[in-house]
């Protein structure tokens, strides 16, 4: 029998477990359920899973607090479930250590896609690939070189740094703050206009149709993702 990653789902809604458990099982995962933050944290400490799906709206603990406590002893991927109109909550959770988020209500496909990305990026599962490919684009993080259709594309150092941070994310969302801090430094974490301009230029240089970006994708109000396809 092949390796089945264990996914801990912490959500107080029974209905969520009712469809997630069979869906996860059918997709080759082993699913563990918890309905309170306390129960989830206990399970997380006793039998660390390969990834966690955490609902931020738990009855017994503030979602942010649950995330903070989990991060004290658990380094694996954590995907949060949050409502669409709660940008601040999402951004807070992402900056507070969550790997990615899914908006409720969600389709199973979406959650599984996020899980796959996160598990691929799981620490210890191998060094990040030195070369990231996405359609026509090839980003060589080691050499600091970008090719499009095999031809070298000239990027400014900031653009390359930005592309590098995005590509290393391997498809997970990276918040504005994380990008600004990584590329321009902590002093510029509010200067979103740098980011807008640089993203626009990256798209001009790399996207097949800059008007319909397929690789550097906007999550309005939250951040950006780099998608291989």
């Amino acid at each position, binding site marked *: 029998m092949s390796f089945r990653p264990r996914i801990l789902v912490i959500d107080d809604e029974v209905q969520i477990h009712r469809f997630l458990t069979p869906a996860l099982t059918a997709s080759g995962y082993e699913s563990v359920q918890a309905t309170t933050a306390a129960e989830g944290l206990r399970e997380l400490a006793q039998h660390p899973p390969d990834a966690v799906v955490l609902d931020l709206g738990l009855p017994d603990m503030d979602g942010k607090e649950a995330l903070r406590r989990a991060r004290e002893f658990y380094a694996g991927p954590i995907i949060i479930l949050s409502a*669409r*109109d709660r*940008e601040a909550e999402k951004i807070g959770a992402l900056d507070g250590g969550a790997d990615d988020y899914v908006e409720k*209500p969600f*389709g199973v496909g979406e959650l599984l896609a996020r899980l796959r990305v996160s598990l691929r990026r799981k620490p210890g599962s191998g060094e990040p690939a030195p070369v990231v490919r996405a359609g026509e684009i090839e980003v060589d993080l080691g050499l600091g070189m970008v090719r499009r259709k095999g031809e070298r594309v000239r990027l*400014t150092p*900031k*653009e390359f740094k930005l592309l590098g941070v995005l590509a290393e994310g391997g498809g997970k969302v990276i918040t504005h703050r994380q990008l600004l801090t990584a590329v*321009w430094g902590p002093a510029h974490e509010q*200067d*979103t*206009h*740098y*980011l*807008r*301009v*640089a*993203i*626009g*230029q990256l798209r001009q240089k790399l996207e097949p149709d800059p*008007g*319909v*970006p397929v690789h550097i*994708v*906007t*999550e*309005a*109000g939250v951040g950006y993702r780099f998608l291989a396809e």
Partner: protein
Amino acid sequence: MALQAAAAVLGLGGMIEPRRLRRETRRRTYSRYAVAVGLVAVANACAYLAGRNLAGANLAMLFLLCVLVSAAAFGIGPALVSAFLAALTYNFFFLEPHYTFRIAHPADLLTFLVFFAVALATGWLAGRARDNERRTAEHAAATTALLDASRALAKTATPDEAAQALAEQIASATSGSAIVLLPGQDGLRLAGAPRGLNALGAGSLEAAEHVWANGEAAPQAERSSEWTFLPLHGVGARVGVVGLRGRLPPRSDDVPDLTSALLEQGGVVIERALLASAASENEALRQADQLRSGLLNSISHDFRTPLTSILGSATTLSDYESELKPSVRRDLLRSIQQDAQRLNQHIGALLDMSRLEGGALRPKQDWTDVREIIGSALRRLGPRLAGRRIERDFAARLSLVRADPTLLEQAILNVLDNAATYTPQGGTIRVAAQEDARNVLIAIEDEGPGIPPDELRSVFDKFKRLRTASDRTGGLGLGLSITKGFVEAMGGRVAAASPLTSAGGARFVISLPKVAETPRGLL
């Protein structure tokens, strides 16, 4: 003897004047009497120096002059005192036998009586004329002050502004300080007060509440607080309480009391402002009510339709699972999925609308590239646009704007969704992002039937759907009004134009103001 008589007259004079006098006024009053007495003394001295050779009538003239001067200068009280004293001293010093109050000659008695009568009459008439004149001046001053106060009060729009103006006007009229308390959610609250006074002590507040409850000022003896509270009446009802501190103005029956006139007028103005604000509250309530009934309508219809389909499909699947062909099963499952998505969209729209209506919308303005936001709106809308061609016309260089990306995305998405609703399969939706000197413009054109001219204006209204397409669209009719609300909250504008061609079509434009300078990054 003379002094005693004078004192008695003084006491009498004191009673003629209004009883509640300010201390200073009282001091001034005494000095007026003192000068009047002094003038009589001067008249006596003059008469003495002139010698007794002056005829009795001439002496009497001298004394009458003194009475007249007192009357003209100090009014009726001092004039009468002066008349009495003049008569007595005239008798005492100048009528035989001297230095007694007795009168020896019958002729002198007549002279004395006539003199006394003339002195009294002179004093009374002249004093009254002088008092009238002074009263007229006071009237004029009070009228002017009242006029100024009404001007100040008339300029106010809200109850609180009126309360503040009233407090200031009373304060300046009494040269003390004044506060105005209006009824609030829980008890009276300070609505008008001198600068720096923000709250009242518990004792004062209790006293004010007492006056508010009883509708009349507390008896002087029971007043414990530093403020004297008086009720403030409008035309119809009590509107508040006024607190006065410092010197209270004289209260007499005949002099118009500026303070009470101000109280009266202020009460009416505040009442009017209260009524006006109640009217606007009523209007807001009426609109909220309209929204609620619209919501109820839409929930009962627009939510039940997809729910019916979901429930029907799900029960069909569970009841006839084995008998259904795989293709039918897939169809039913797909319709469950689609209708659930539609419900989710409805709920999103209701939440957006309640954020707008609740006034809780605080756009998080950030540097935004509208092309990027259009892109993510198109991506989120995805399957809804299936079968329509999307034509993009984006300026290669476009200024950034200050906007809330999530609100802008929803605003654009709603217009695109509307375009998808009305554009038939195979039609084209055009999306443009351009800028002019002042604005960045997002234009979305559909190939729908167009909007009739008489409905164009109300296209951004809540629950507005084209009459011809009400059931087909399955929307709540909130999308465009949410777009308008969001865009305006970000400082932008929306506009609609239709028809675009003879076949119809509509264009929606979202314009967002450009910030003076678009920052260029450190690239």
